[in-house]
């Protein structure tokens, strides 16, 4: 694709990776799969090492990373959205947060340079999992009818408005939520990856002809790389906090 003499690949080519192993099967392994596996291994290693008994009172290294993450999720997510009874969901929410974070952060790691969540697979899978979890929690906490009633007929709304509110709540709670969760994460990572690729190609192309002007897109590339760290963290946090909000809303009828 040629735009102003820049040779840009088709957009989809930036996200579709060739199969490395087991081609043609449902277990084909490509770069995206490797990033997912790496995110799993890194999280396991961090929490495995952090959980070892230590003499030191001051946490350091991976222990600091794990404990900061747990503290952050507990104080900024669970306690703010569900309350003390939400602590039982801490392992689930911590897993979601770290898995998404490490699947996102690979977008700025040299050589890898690909955020796995810019592929739709895990955003969709995790969103559906969250959908199942918060609905099961709602049914267990309030009973089937009670959960449906509190979800579709929110308290405090004048009864004649239920004609409008109930269909909106039905679509919002049971249809839109998983889609919005998945698309928000996926679209943000796609946009970030596109920006990085665009400015990288622009820098490389200009470098072949004009050394000085190439510095401008390169500086922008550096800025966006740092910005993508923030986006990677922020998207993991948003996905986790929305999951907690949905679970908290399902647990309490007054939400």
């Amino acid at each position, binding site marked *: 694709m040629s735009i102003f003499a820049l040779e840009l*690949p*088709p*957009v*989809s*080519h*930036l*996200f*579709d*990776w*060739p*199969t490395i192993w*087991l081609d043609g*099967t*449902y*277990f*084909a*392994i*490509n*770069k*995206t*799969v490797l990033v*997912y*596996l790496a*995110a*799993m291994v890194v*999280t*396991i290693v961090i*929490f*495995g090492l*952090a*959980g*070892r*008994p*230590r003499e030191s*009172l001051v*946490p350091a290294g991976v*222990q600091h990373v*794990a*404990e900061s993450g*747990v*503290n952050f999720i507990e104080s900024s997510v669970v306690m703010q959205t569900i309350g003390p009874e939400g602590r039982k969901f*801490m*392992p*689930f929410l*911590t*897993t979601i947060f*770290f*898995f998404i974070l490490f699947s996102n952060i690979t977008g700025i790691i040299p050589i890898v340079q690909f955020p*796995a969540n*810019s*592929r*739709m*697979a*895990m955003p*969709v*899978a*995790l969103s559906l*999992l969250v959908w199942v979890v918060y609905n099961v929690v709602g049914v267990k906490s309030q009973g089937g009818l009670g959960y449906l009633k509190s979800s579709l007929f929110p308290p405090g709304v004048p009864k004649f408005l239920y004609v409008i509110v109930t269909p909106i709540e039905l679509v919002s709670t049971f249809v839109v939520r998983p889609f919005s969760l998945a698309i928000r994460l*996926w679209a943000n990572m*796609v946009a970030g990856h596109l920006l990085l690729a665009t400015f990288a190609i622009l820098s490389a192309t200009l470098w072949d002809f004009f050394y000085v002007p190439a510095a401008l897109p390169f500086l922008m590339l550096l800025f966006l790389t740092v910005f993508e760290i923030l986006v990677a963290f922020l998207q993991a946090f948003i996905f986790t906090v929305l999951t907690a909000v949905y679970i908290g809303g399902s647990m309490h009828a007054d939400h």
Partner: protein
Amino acid sequence: MAAGETIGGCVLEKAAEVEKEYGSLQAFKSGPEDAIEDFEDDLEGCVEAPSPILPEIDEIIWGSAAFAILFAFMAWKGFPAVRRAMDARSEKIQADLDAADAAKADAMSTKSQYEEQLAEAKTAAAAIIDEARMQADQLRTDLQARAEADIAEQRARATADIESSRHQAIDDLRGDVASIAVGAAERVVGASLDAEVHRSLIDSYIEEVAGSRDNG
């Protein structure tokens, strides 16, 4: 087509496959129409890639498996171990804080005891000093009184001694004067007077003389 491949590379690869199968591209051009349509589809595939919004089954399977394994590990060991470590540290810090509070309370109690004892000691010292001062005053007063009494006694004794000595001297003098006067008178008058009469005359004379001196 996948990332990392160029469109030209993909086309060349497809052309090489056809060339290998049919010997040359010219031979392929005169080949079956179905094969040509498949080749065209392959070339379109070099330009088009799968929709990025459609999830791939293999990625869902591997990603879900990775997440499931990770969640199982976190629920079984990872999270509880980290939580235990955090709780243990919190408990240790709390225990240290409690111990420090207890030590501080002990120190404060000891300090108040010391201060109390110090105040008592100061009070006792002040009482002792006052008592000593009173005793010293009393002793000084006693000593002064005793000294004054001694002085008065010594003075009285000295006065008595002086008076006694004076009387003794007067008596001695009287005797001597009487003897001298008698002797002198005997010589003057040539007559012997009765000693007793002379003595009484002399005594009266002396007393007269002494009385006139005392009055004078």
